[in-house]
């Protein structure tokens, strides 16, 4: 295995534990926004999609790359926007 793969694995494992620690503290009332918001984060694949789409590697790769950018951006923008819309609705009781 190459150095970079080992380094990647180390990061992957540590980030998994970090994720578990962070998510365990999110209250159930926010579980839906948590899912849509973390979903938007997984749209980070857009970085890979942009590289592939822009690299001019022949038409098949460019078409695949273009579609990948579209799907990833749907994921990113759709995810963040809908999460924002939901979170805007969560209100505390007004003090009377």
């Amino acid at each position: 295995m190459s150095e970079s793969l080992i380094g990647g694995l180390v990061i992957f494992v540590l980030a998994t534990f970090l994720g578990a620690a962070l998510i365990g503290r999110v209250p159930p009332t926010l579980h839906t926004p948590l899912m849509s918001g973390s979903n938007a984060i997984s749209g980070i694949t857009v970085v890979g999609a942009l590289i592939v789409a822009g690299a001019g590697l022949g038409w098949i790769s460019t078409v695949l790359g273009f579609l990948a950018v579209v799907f990833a951006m749907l994921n990113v923008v759709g995810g963040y926007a809908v999460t924002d819309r939901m979170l805007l609705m969560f209100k505390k009781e007004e003090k009377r």
Partner: protein
Amino acid sequence: MNRATEQLVYLVAAILFIVGLQRLQSPATARSGNAVSGLGMLIAVIATLLSAEILSPSVVLAGLVVGSGVGYWMARTVRMTSMPQMVALLNGFGGAASLLVGGAEFLKSELHAEQIPIDTGITIQLSLFIGAITFTGSLIAWAKLQEVMTGKPIVFPAQKLLSALLVLTVVGLSTYQLMTAESLLWPFYAVCAISLLLGILLVIPIGGADMPVVIALLNSYSGIAAAMTGFVIDNSVLIISGALVGSSGIILSQIMCKAMNRSLANVLFGAFGAAGPKGSAKSAAGLSVRSVTPEDAAIQLAYAQSVVVIPGYGMAVAQAQHAVREIQELIEKRGGEVKYAIHPVAGRMPGHMNVLLAEANVPYDKLREMDDINPEMERCDVAIVIGANDVVNPGARTDQSSPIFGMPIINADYAKSIIVLKRSMAAGFAGIENELFYNPKTSMLFGDAKQSLTKVISEIKQL
């Protein structure tokens, strides 16, 4: 931008994602957390555009515009009751993106007759496999939730065997692809096709009410697929973000399984609810239910000091959340107290009820978790059950022969009186009788929940 600067900028993006998730720990800071996370994404996209060699800017720009535009439109127009479908679709899009990037990377090397190093090869195959399963699995979950296809489990003989054989075939083909020195395209296409098929096969046997677990799990897969893509293109921000999302989805699906007292394997392969109504030890024979009119229910509610609302998927179907809030305000005006008891698996996705009630302007501090509300149930004057069934079935506590025995429930039957809003006496998702309905303290208010509540509201106003 040189490679080192690029990596540092990606690190900043990863930190912003983590801070964003951290701020989701309280509804007060959650919205700003989402914005912080979005800023991280913006930074990552800009850094990529500045550092990557973009030879076809028009393609990239078109992709960005189309994806963002459609995504934004979907997010603005989707109805809150359709949120589970929306999240399922978004999961699928993430999976599709990973599949496509993996595919493009593979074809690039193959078409240029480059030998792919074995470790990159493995991560490409994983990225294809997980991305494809996430994509078609999410589409099936969407179709079930949207009721384009039946929400009932679809099972056929030797289903699990077929899936297992297909997984083995994928492993075999991938290994062959990695080992052979020839430049072959057919194993690649075969792996993609079989993985897409597997996504369908894995989700069709799962019933509608188990969707919270499936959506959480697909969420996790979309994260893992992104992380695999990160390995393929050797980019740490993808690995970090993918791993964060991957563990988030796993934790949520564990919470859901625990709330149903079932293992993940049972949810995924158990085809729960496929067999239809089961003969529970306690049958309904000889027992009678007491049906009441909206007027009676209104009197009961109007003079109650403490009311607990227990919503379920039926509230979402009937769009009754606004009527519920109106009743809450009427009772409060008359000096009573109203709380909401939320079971972790009420609805079709984690937190589904909370979002619907938030949409109806119910303050989130009125919503209580199952473990917090249960000790108070004995002091509750009226428990009003709206479109929930299995999560309030006392059989889960007492009837050892019940399929849901051992599942934690909201103790509606401990309340001084109970009103159940229900369309008919049809059994719940698990297909079992609910002795709560035959309890002498229970009154059944039959009909569409929204219409019933609207009648109750006008009755209370006249009192």
